[in-house]
C-alpha cells in the first residue's frame, strides 16, 4: 500500500522535472524512490531510521562536547575576522558553484559566479573581502546534489552522516564528488589541509550558534524535526527559493469539515438576538 503513493509522488516529481535529459537519470530516480519506500510503518523516506537515529545521537554528543564549544571559542573573534574567514572559503567555493549553475543551464548565474571569483580573488585580496556582492554580483548556493536534483534525480533514502548530519543518498554522492574537486581537500600538505578544513568547519558551525538552540526548544522529537527540516530545505534550494506550491488535499478536506462544524454551531443560536447584542 505504501509504495503506491510514493510512486505517484515520484511520477509527479518526474513530470515537474520534464526537462530531465537523460533517460538513465530518470530511471535511477525512480529506482531510488522505490528503495526509499521500503520501510514499514516509519517515515517512507527513512528506511534506515534506527541506524540514522544512532548516528544522530552520536553527532549530538560530539557537537555538545567538541564542535559547539570550539565554535563558541571561535565566536569571540572580532566580526571582521569572522566575516573575512567566511568570505575566504566562500570565494574558494564560488568556482564549483558556478560550474554547477552551468550544469543546470543557468548561464547568467554561472557567469556571475565566475565574475565573483575573479573580482574577489584580486580586488578582494584572495577572497577576504566580498567586493563582488557590493558590485551587485549576488552569492549563490549550489552543489552537485542540487544539480542532480535539478535534473530529476530522486533524493533516495534519508541518511545521517557522522559529524556532518542530515543528508540523503543523492546528496551524499554529490557531496563525495563536491569534496573530490574541493580546493581545500586538494592541498597536499596534511597539516595545512587539516587546519583549513577545521577552520572552515568551525566558521560554519559558529554561524549557527543561536539558531541551534531554537531547534532544541521547538522540537518534540529533534531527530524528526531535523529530518523534515532538511527535506524542505533542500527542495527549496533545488528550486532556488521557489518550490512549486502544492495544495494539501488533507487540509482542504479539514477546512471544509471545520467550516461545516462552525455552520452547525451558529445554526443553533439564531433565536437569541439578546445574546448577540451582549457580545458586541
Amino acid at each position, binding site marked *: 500500500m505504501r509504495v503506491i503513493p510514493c510512486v505517484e509522488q515520484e511520477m509527479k516529481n518526474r513530470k515537474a522535472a520534464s526537462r530531465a535529459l537523460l533517460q538513465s537519470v530518470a530511471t535511477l530516480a525512480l529506482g531510488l524512490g522505490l528503495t526509499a519506500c521500503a520501510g514499514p510503518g516509519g*517515515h517512507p523516506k527513512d528506511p534506515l531510521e534506527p541506524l540514522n537515529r544512532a548516528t544522530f545521537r552520536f553527532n549530538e554528543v560530539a557537537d555538545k562536547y567538541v564542535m559547539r564549544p570550539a565554535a563558541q571559542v571561535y565566536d569571540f573573534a572580532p*566580526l571582521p575576522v*569572522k*566575516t573575512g574567514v*567566511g*568570505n575566504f572559503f566562500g570565494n574558494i567555493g564560488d568556482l564549483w558553484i558556478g560550474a554547477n549553475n552551468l550544469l543546470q543551464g543557468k548561464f547568467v548565474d554561472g557567469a556571475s559566479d565566475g565574475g565573483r571569483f575573479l573580482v574577489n580573488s584580486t580586488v578582494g585580496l584572495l577572497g577576504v573581502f*566580498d567586493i563582488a556582492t557590493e558590485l551587485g554580483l549576488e*552569492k549563490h*548556493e549550489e552543489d552537485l546534489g542540487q544539480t542532480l536534483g535539478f535534473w530529476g534525480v530522486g533524493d533516495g533514502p534519508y541518511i545521517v552522516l557522522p559529524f556532518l548530519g542530515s543528508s540523503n543518498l543523492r546528496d551524499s554522492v554529490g557531496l563525495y564528488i563536491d569534496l573530490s574537486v574541493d580546493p581545500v581537500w586538494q592541498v597536499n600538505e596534511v597539516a595545512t589541509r587539516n587546519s583549513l578544513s577545521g577552520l572552515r568547519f568551525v566558521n560554519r558551525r559558529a*554561524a549557527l550558534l*543561536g539558531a541551534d*538552540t*531554537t531547534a532544541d*526548544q*521547538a*522540537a*518534540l*522529537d529533534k531527530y*524528526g*524535526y531535523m*529530518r*523534515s*527540516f532538511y527535506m*524542505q*530545505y533542500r*527542495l*527549496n*534550494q533545488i528550486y532556488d*527559493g521557489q*518550490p512549486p*506550491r502544492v495544495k*494539501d488535499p*488533507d*487540509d482542504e*478536506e*479539514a*477546512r471544509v*469539515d*471545520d467550516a461545516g*462544524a462552525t455552520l452547525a454551531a451558529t445554526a443553533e443560536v439564531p433565536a437569541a*438576538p439578546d445574546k*448577540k*447584542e451582549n457580545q*458586541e
Partner: protein
Amino acid sequence: MKKVASLLAALALGIGIQFNAFADAIAPDALVKSVTDDVITIVRQDKAIQSGDTRKAVELVETKVLPYFDFAHMTRLAVGKDWKQANADQKAVLTNEFKTLLVRTYSNALTQYRNQQIDFKPLKAKPEETDVIVRTEVRQPGAKAVQIDYNLEKQGDNWKVYDVMVAGVSLVTNYRDSFGQEVRSGGIDGLIKSLKDKNKQIDPAVSAKK
C-alpha cells in the same frame, strides 16, 4: 415595535463597528511590512529584549504579532490528516498549545536581532487572489541573506498569516511527522499531553527562576 427598532439599532451599530475595523483593510504585503517595522522599531529601543529577556519578547509578539495569525489554520496544517479525528474541544486545546509552543520558541529570535536589514520583495499576486506569499529577506553583513516567506489567506476583508517559511522550511508543516508519530502512539490526547509537557519545559517564567 420598539423592540424591533432597538434590535435594528443594535445590528446597525454592530455592522458599523465592523465596517470601521475593516475600512482600512490593507494589502497583504503592506500588512507584513507594517507589522515587521513596528516590531523592529520596538526591539531597537528595548534594551531588555536585546539582552535576552524572553518574557518581554513573548509579550511583544502577543500584542503586536498574534492578532494577524490564524492559529487554528496553522494547527490544522501541522496535524495534517489526523485533524479529522479530533473533536471540537481537542481542536481548541491543540490550537492553544501549539500557539504557545510557537510563540515561546520563536519569540527568542527577537532577542537575537542585531540591526539586520529586512528587504520586502514585490508581491506577485493578482488582486482577486485570496492566498498569497509575501517574500522577505533578512540581510546581514558577511552572511548569505535568509529568505523568510509568509503565507497569508484572506478572511473576509482581512489577511491572516497561516504559515511562515524560513529558508524554505515551513515552521508549521515541519511538525507534521512528529505530530503524526504522537497520534499513532497515543492518539490525539497523547499529542496534547506531549505539547503540554513541552510547553512546561520551555516556559520562560519557570526557566527565569532557575
